[in-house]
């Protein structure tokens, strides 16, 4: 029994899950209706639904970020801007007409995702081939990305008026759950399958831990790093398409704004080391959901948008501190002291 308990508490996912549960429990106390789910017009409504719905694009970004962090021990800070680029490409190619798209819908989406991947190729080239530090390399698209998106939109906010465009960001007819959730699940499953059914997961970790040793056992380290950046670009693109569909427009200045920070935070909250190497996809997903749960619950408590960052920061500090090794050391010392005291007493 105690062995099982130890196994659970030592798992990397233990603390992230506890953090998420804490946030949720706190909510139930403050907002008793928190877990209530109602059905309106055949679709589900409620705080919980809202959380997983709004968390979708963050989950997708966090997955891309996770593989990048694992392989290159650096972060891709351009994900938000790349999302805007993808959104711009999609909106531009589909056009503003109410009756018909300029190109078929899937072609538009495809072009957008290609744009995202192309940005990933650029980042990957700088990091893997030119050996530029990831944060500096991706800083380029972080700033230039929104400019590119503006250029595509010719400085305008392009609205896609055709009603079907909203489906990706809302509900498919007859389906009670919001579409983004399905997209996020699809991305999770595909990523999981790739890591499970190829040796890529081990390669990424090996490269992140010791790329020299990785090379000597036959891994092409730069190719692996390159690949993870492209994948991250693709994830940014998917995320951009969802965000743009939610507002049925492309707002180059605001799509995915500050998302890179939340994505990095999601990876860290999931118990993943930002120093690269070992990673847990599930951890990042839970981290992303925790962040969204926090935001949604603060809104539910009528915290205004301008005060939100303060409360969020406090909670994040607590969660991150609990997971730090220093805290764990301190805690285990404390436990030992009590054990000794108890022994002395008996």
């Amino acid at each position, binding site marked *: 029994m105690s062995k099982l308990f130890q196994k659970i508490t030592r798992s990397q996912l233990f603390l992230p899950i506890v953090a998420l549960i804490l946030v949720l429990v706190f909510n139930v106390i403050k907002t008793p209706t928190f877990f209530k789910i109602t059905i309106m017009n055949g679709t589900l409504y409620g705080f919980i639904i809202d959380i997983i719905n709004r968390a979708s694009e963050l989950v997708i970004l966090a997955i891309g970020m996770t593989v990048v962090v694992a392989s290159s021990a650096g972060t891709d800070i351009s994900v938000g801007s790349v999302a805007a680029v993808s959104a711009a490409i999609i909106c531009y190619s589909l056009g503003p007409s109410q009756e018909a798209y300029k190109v078929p819908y899937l072609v538009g989406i495809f072009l957008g995702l290609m744009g995202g991947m192309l940005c990933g190729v650029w980042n990957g080239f700088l990091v893997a081939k030119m050996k530029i530090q990831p944060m500096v390399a991706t800083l380029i698209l972080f700033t230039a990305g929104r400019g590119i998106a503006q250029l595509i939109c010719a400085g305008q906010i392009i609205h896609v008026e055709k009603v079907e465009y909203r489906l990706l960001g809302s509900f498919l007819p007859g389906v009670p759950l919001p579409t983004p959730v399905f997209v996020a699940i699809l991305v999770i499953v595909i990523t999981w399958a790739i890591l499970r059914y190829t*040796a890529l997961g*081990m390669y990424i*970790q090996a490269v992140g*831990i010791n790329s020299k040793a990785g090379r000597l*056992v036959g891994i092409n380290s730069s190719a692996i790093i390159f690949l993870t950046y492209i994948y991250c670009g693709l994830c940014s693109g998917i995320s951009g398409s969802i965000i743009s569909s939610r507002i049925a427009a492309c707002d180059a200045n605001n799509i995915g704004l500050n998302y890179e920070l939340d994505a990095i935070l999601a990876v860290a909250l999931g118990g993943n080391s930002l120093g690269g*190497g070992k990673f847990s996809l599930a951890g990042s997903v839970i981290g992303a959901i925790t962040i969204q749960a926090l935001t949604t619950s603060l809104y539910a408590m009528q915290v205004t948008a301008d005060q939100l960052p303060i409360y969020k920061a406090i909670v994040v500090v607590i969660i991150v501190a609990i997971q730090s090794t220093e805290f764990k050391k301190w805690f285990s010392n404390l436990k030992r002291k009590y054990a000794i005291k108890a022994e002395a007493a008996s």
Partner: protein
Amino acid sequence: MSNDLLTMRHITKNFPGVRALNDVDFTLRSGEIHALMGENGAGKSTLIKVLTGVEDFEEGEVLVSWMDHPLINHSPQEAQKKGISTVYQEINLCPNLSVAENIFIGREPKKNGMIDWKKMNDCAKKLLKDLNLAHIDVTKSLEHYSVAIQQMVAIARAVDIESKILIFDEPTSSLDELETEKLFQIMRQLKNKGVGIIFITHFLEQVYQVCDRITVLRNGELVGEYLIKDLPRVQLVAKMLGKDFDDLAAIKKEGIEKRDRANQVPILSAKNVGHRGTIKPFDAEIFAGEVIGLTGLLGSGRSEMVRSIYGADRPDSGELSIKGKKKKISAPIDAMKAGMGFLPEDRKAEGIISDLSVRENINIALQTKRGMFRPLNQRERAEFTEKYIKLLQIKVANPDSPVKQLSGGNQQKVILARWLLTNPDFLILDEPTRGIDVGTKTEIQKLVLKLAEEGMTIMFISSEVDEMLRTVGRMYVLRDGELVGELTEDQMNENAVMAAIAGGEKDE
């Protein structure tokens, strides 16, 4: 008794699942060089870590003569302040700082509140000059220099701190003979000044060269403390192993080298292969079932030669043929596919993938050889790991634990297992026995000979000449980045090898 500098009493330390130290006593007198001996995992390093505050301990006490209360350190910095400094087995310096900065980090000479760079660089230069390293540019960053020089810098740093107790944890494992001799001189000087020195090494010869006293540990327990003259070498080994030492000289077998090579196609032949700046173009022919040695001083190009064969440093001239067929090798994966395996010199930096499990570390080379899209299944992974843990007697409680938790010797066995699993025709072992205890050394040497008998070709590099003489059937000699000659079996004896390595008269 008044001579005692350091007394450690009843030290006990547990790691999860292992008792690393059990009721160990250790005494160091002032003005002595005291060897701490034992196999890998005997507890030498742990004892040092306890002393210097890297690890805490559960029971026991540490007393030093200049303090009237028990000493407990919480960090190496604290220990250093209290007069105990260490040169670690694994070099822990900052490669991107200059040599001078590395020597003076944390205690830089100041002038008007600012670092006095000139004074710092001058002092560093003088210190290194005392170590015969006058040619080092102390303002260059450390990573420009070889492992051996980095080690010397670490030593210079520790020597300069003027501690009462100085600990050398395997300081010579990457030094050549001249450098080692220089180090010993310095150790003797310090000893005459009354410093107490703890010396940990795997080289028995060196123990008898410099030490006054020996403490032997085995499996975390104290075996005993001896004066050097009371403990002949064979007995020391017997005490370390806890059994009689079977004579290493007996393991060498004869035969294969004597075979007629006239009509044989060499398994590997190199023509004019070279890598600019590290190894001049060389020709080599190696035959199946041979154990071929590469000998030379550190920096002579022995590692660089095998690295260019394996594609670790992409050769920029010449061509390689394997089994008579020309092969282009531009990256390690090409070499692996051509049937090669490579155990690198620097286990920590290039060998183990520290956070991955023992299982993954063993399987990874076979996996990359098979390709990303054909992953080994769970059963295969477990089976292969199990097989090689048994075969090489790797001491590990759980194959899923990270490889970094293993002792150095066992990590090396994991890397050996990694390559044996790929079933190579041609295996390159660059210093496979460095920093490894005597027992494991013998095991590895035996394994090398057994593999060769089964038809594997092995290229063997070692700094220890007698180990080479016992193991290899033919030797290439390297000097100053150039392949300068070859010694056949009947030419090989210690003197001949030394002469070949040193080559003619040299100034300096």
